[in-house]
């Protein structure tokens, strides 16, 4: 069994154990209402995290996701407030905002070889300011948070069959599609190769620049999609919506097994990571522990996960080296004989 499979099993086991413990303390945890909300919370972070996973597999990082959510939600609010543009067109325009941001990020990272962290952090700052600039204002110039009453738009934030939220359904469809793309297409292979060893990837003919731009565009699109669902659920949006959510997204991806070093990870892990994070947050509320513990718990989990990853990698390398040495000794022994 691969170490990814083992890790995934441990994560699932941990989730089941935690769920059992939380249910003992507060049986409301297992109520259908709570579980459906938990899944919705996981999906909101998870949609962004799916896109972020692609970036991290290429050994990149995208700190602009919060800014994309903020500016996309403001774009939606403006269109809903001032126009009667059909909702499918509005959603397309929203995704275009994310794609454009990703294109800009990818361009500066590949063309000028700038560090991903700096470029995307700068983009985040620009987008945060842009969100304030384009926010709907009242006659005195004060930011006015618009109350969304368009039923077609609100559809995204509501529940459907069996009470399952549409955000959750979108997350599942996106996750499955993204995983299939990663594992069963040439572009998916290129993404892994770019992250594992960009020089070698280029030498084998992979256009690593195009791959990099592509993953940042996908990350932007996912963030924009999340903005639609979040603003629909809240029936409004604020210029600061999504800013500060980067930690949760990174935590989901790291817990799921995608490494900052690139070349490893997948969407299944991210989906489990998003679910695990939502479970921790929900569980903390159910057990009556102070919500201030949440960021401490999330930070602690990230640190532990990274330590376990590093330890596992060292152990694997050590065992592989020992096995190789044993093989060489056996071959030498046979030759001598």
């Amino acid at each position, binding site marked *: 069994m691969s170490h990814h499979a083992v890790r995934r099993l441990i994560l699932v086991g941990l989730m089941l154990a935690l769920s059992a413990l939380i249910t003992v303390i507060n049986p409301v945890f297992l109520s259908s209402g*709570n579980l459906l*909300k938990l899944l919705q*919370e996981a999906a909101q972070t998870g949609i962004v995290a799916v896109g972020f996973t692609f970036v991290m597999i290429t050994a990149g990082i995208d700190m602009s996701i919060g800014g994309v959510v903020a500016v996309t939600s403001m774009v939606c609010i403006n269109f809903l407030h001032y126009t009667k543009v059909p909702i499918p067109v509005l959603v397309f325009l929203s995704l275009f905002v994310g794609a454009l941001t990703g294109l800009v990020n990818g361009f500066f990272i590949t063309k000028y070889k700038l560090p991903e962290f700096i470029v995307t952090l700068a983009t985040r700052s620009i987008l945060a300011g842009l969100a304030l600039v384009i926010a709907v204002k009242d006659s005195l110039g004060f*930011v006015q948070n*618009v109350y969304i009453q368009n039923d077609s738009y609100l559809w995204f934030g509501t529940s459907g069959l069996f009470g399952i939220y549409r955000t959750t359904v979108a997350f599942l469809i996106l996750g499955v599609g993204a995983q299939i793309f990663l594992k069963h297409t040439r572009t998916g292979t290129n993404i892994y190769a770019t992250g594992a060893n960009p020089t070698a990837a280029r030498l084998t003919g992979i256009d690593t620049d195009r791959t990099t731009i592509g993953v940042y565009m996908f990350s932007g699109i996912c963030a924009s999609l999340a903005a639609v669902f*979040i603003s629909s659920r809240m029936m*409004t949006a*604020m210029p600061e919506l999504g800013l500060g959510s980067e930690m949760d997204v990174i935590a989901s991806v790291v817990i799921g097994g995608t490494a900052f070093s690139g070349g490893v990870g997948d969407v299944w892990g991210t989906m489990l990571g998003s679910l695990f994070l939502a479970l921790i947050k929900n569980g903390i509320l159910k057990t009556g522990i102070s919500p*201030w513990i949440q960021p401490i718990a999330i930070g602690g989990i990230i640190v532990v996960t990274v330590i376990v990853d590093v330890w596992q990698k060292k152990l694997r390398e050590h065992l592989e080296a020992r096995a190789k040495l044993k093989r060489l000794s056996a071959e030498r022994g046979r030759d001598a004989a």
Partner: protein
Amino acid sequence: MKKTAIVAALLCVLLVVPAVAQTYKVAYIPQSIGQPNTNAWLEGMMRVFRKYPNVKVQSFDAQLKAELQVSYMDDVINQKYDAIVLQAMDAAALSASVKAAEAKGIPVITVNLATIQKHTASVQMADISAGYAVGKEMGKQLGGKGNVVIIQSPPGAILGVNREKGFRQAMAELYPNIKIVGAQSAEGWKKEIAITIMNGFLQANKELAGVFAVNDNMAEGAMIAAEAAGRLDQIKIWGANGQKSTLALIEQGKIAGTAYNNSFAQGSLIAEMVMENLQKKLGPSKAAETKVIQIPPFAATKETVGQIAAEDRW
């Protein structure tokens, strides 16, 4: 026979009393925990709730994020809390959650900002009036002329927006010779950000006569900057809320005034409304509109701050 009667009576008490003394869970969801204002509301509420050992209050820190408040509202609804006290980040964003709570039989009382969705009650500091009172008093102190600036709330924070509206209205109506020469918002209502903003105002305006910071934290930041620049005696600095540290600075003459609100009393009033609702099992209000109780502000200056008793300073 007598012994049997006594034992029977004791048994009845032991069986009946627990059934009668139902435990109530009250959720307190302010914009953030740890601010003087939100702490004062909680203390005011606890002054009432402490009389009822069967009432348990759980606070939730939304860290100034509406989406977190929405999550917490979902959670307390699922956990079937008996009442919710909510200081909404945004009137629209929390409307769906308030509607869901009241639909599940959980009365919601909002603090300072009523959601668009109607609910049981809202206990508010009259923000526009507070800003107007500040403008009126500051104008008097400035003799009706001079340049003033505003340190604003984070964009979209209705509380701060309303105070500023009231202030601007007072200036426009009462003091046409007072010019508002600058306005900038301080992220997170933070004192350290206000210091930076005030430094900018001081450098840009050699003749600055007044500053209205829409909350006391920011007013104290403005005061620190003005004092460091050696210009505190030339500038009338006003805040709003009336927290204890600001009242002390007013007594020292370092801050010109604040729009004081007795947040302890506001919290106690909310708690009394919650208890009345729970004890009488009223549930969410069936009235067509939200019952709004507005607490008028008190302009506390060096001359009037002594009227605020020690037990009312939070």
